[in-house]
């Protein structure tokens, strides 16, 4: 199907490989150091480790010395990068040039937010990076040391480990392959002790020129390794999707997955796409008098509290699932380990296919619900009416 066409849409020929004797991390940071030093950008948005703690967070750095605490690929995804970017660029005009280093799913989120006018990318260079995945937040918080070590291993060997976040285990868009809407991409795969800088937009190209990195190195090795890994992960994803579609098909399957939910709405608040200040499902528009609740309870024998759990999740789905980038932030933030990330990603996958839409892929693609084609989805109407419509259009 034409998804595949899209998957291979952006297809850069060449890139710039840079040495990484000391460490990959070092090599990556050097790119940004240079960009900052040469005033190509005024500030860099990058994950960093909070001094004297195990905590990671996003910092927007201008002072070169802060690179010491920066970490391009931390073991956890603390705040979804898209959210971080939007948090300071959504109000008013950004008068600084910023380079933002993010995981592909975070870049996709940023692009979706752009379409929703929740982020200002005019002065932002989005840089994606080959992503080995991240570890579950709570696991890390429970034992930072242990998780750090295992993550080190995993990220070096690009292993699809069970100890990764479920979202990352099932992620097949961990690299540039599906034309992630970034300007630059940093390839880690393939080349040993090297990183590859790949431009993915005119902005990216421009930045590379300014950096004096001429894209003349072949990308074959990187591509080959990547394709292999993508195949592997795509297979894993397929099986994951099947498994969960089965689960949900069962009566109440969906609800049973949610029956631990306590309405803390952490999932929503961690979700980069849920940008509303006031979630509709928090607002007072859905309060009823006690009698009503009592009535509901009498109909079913019992009424579960907190109320509206199902409404919240399905409602939220209807609001954002077409833009769901399957980053898994929601599941990471869930205190009662509801597989909410997997549920949304699974539903998202289906609905997005319906609309032939891949969130965060392409800045030009309109959001499915902000766009329509007269002759689409005839099947939901009666076929012959549909026929007429189309022919009428033709006239």
């Amino acid at each position: 199907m034409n998804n595949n066409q899209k998957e291979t849409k952006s297809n850069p020929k060449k890139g710039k490989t840079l040495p990484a004797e000391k460490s990959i991390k070092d090599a990556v940071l050097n790119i940004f150091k240079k960009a900052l030093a040469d005033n190509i950008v005024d500030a860099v948005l990058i994950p960093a480790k909070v001094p004297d703690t195990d905590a990671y967070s996003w910092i927007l750095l201008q002072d070169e010395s802060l690179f010491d605490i920066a970490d391009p690929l931390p073991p956890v995804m603390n705040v979804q990068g898209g959210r971080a970017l939007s948090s300071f660029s959504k109000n008013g005009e950004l008068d600084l040039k910023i380079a933002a280093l993010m995981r592909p799913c975070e870049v996709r989120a940023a692009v979706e937010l752009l379409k929703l006018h929740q982020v200002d990318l005019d002065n932002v260079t989005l840089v994606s990076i080959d992503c080995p995945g991240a570890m579950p937040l709570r696991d890390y918080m429970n034992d930072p040391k242990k998780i750090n070590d295992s993550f080190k291993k995993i990220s070096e060997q690009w292993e699809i480990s069970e100890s990764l976040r479920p979202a990352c285990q099932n992620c097949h868009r961990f690299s540039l392959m599906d034309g992630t809407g970034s300007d630059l991409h940093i390839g880690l795969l393939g080349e040993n002790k090297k990183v590859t800088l790949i431009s993915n937009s005119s902005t990216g190209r421009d930045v590379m020129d300014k950096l004096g990195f001429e894209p003349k190195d072949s990308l074959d090795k990187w591509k080959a390794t990547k394709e292999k890994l993508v195949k592997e992960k795509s297979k894993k994803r397929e099986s994951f999707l099947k498994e969960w579609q089965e689960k949900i098909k069962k009566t109440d399957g969906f609800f049973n997955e949610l029956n631990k939910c306590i309405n803390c709405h952490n999932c929503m608040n961690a979700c980069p796409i849920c940008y509303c200040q006031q979630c509709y499902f928090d607002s007072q528009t859905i309060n009823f008098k006690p009698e009503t609740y009592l009535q509901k309870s009498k109909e079913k024998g019992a009424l579960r509290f907190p109320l509206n759990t199902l409404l919240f999740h399905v409602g939220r789905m209807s609001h954002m699932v077409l833009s769901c980038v399957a980053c898994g932030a929601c599941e990471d933030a869930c205190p009662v380990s509801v597989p909410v990330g997997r549920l949304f990603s699974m539903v998202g996958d289906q609905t997005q296919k319906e609309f032939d839409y891949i969130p965060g892929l392409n800045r030009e693609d309109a959001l499915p619900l902000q766009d329509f084609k007269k002759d689409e989805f005839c099947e939901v109407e009666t076929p012959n009416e549909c026929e007429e419509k189309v022919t009428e259009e033709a006239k």
Partner: protein
Amino acid sequence: MNDKYTPNIIGFLCNWCSYTGADLAGTSRMKIPPSLKTIRVMCSGRIDPLFVLKAFIKGADGVMMMGCHPGDCHYQKGNYNTRRRFVMLNSIFDILGLEKKRIGLWWVSASEATRFAQVTNEYNKEMEKLGPNPTAKEIFL
């Protein structure tokens, strides 16, 4: 003497007493530290603790709240609320081990220009001693 550290102090003054008192201090040519930037509100009751907190977090070296003496509030009782809210914020700072010197509440009436001059100057000295507010340079707020 040029590189002498001058603190950045914000003063929330109620319109009827303290702001008038400050005006009077000016009219009587009293010397008030330039480090103090006054912000006029109608009643000290309007001073949301969040203003103080936000000013503190944004790096203000000192935040002064000023209003009419209890019982003299132009709006009759507003400053009693102010007092409670201040006590609230103050003990939060206390228990969290934040520098509570950096926030303060003073009653200054419209006629107490001298008191205004005195408290602002004293406070300014105190802040000079205390040095810059770490929040001004802190990244991880």
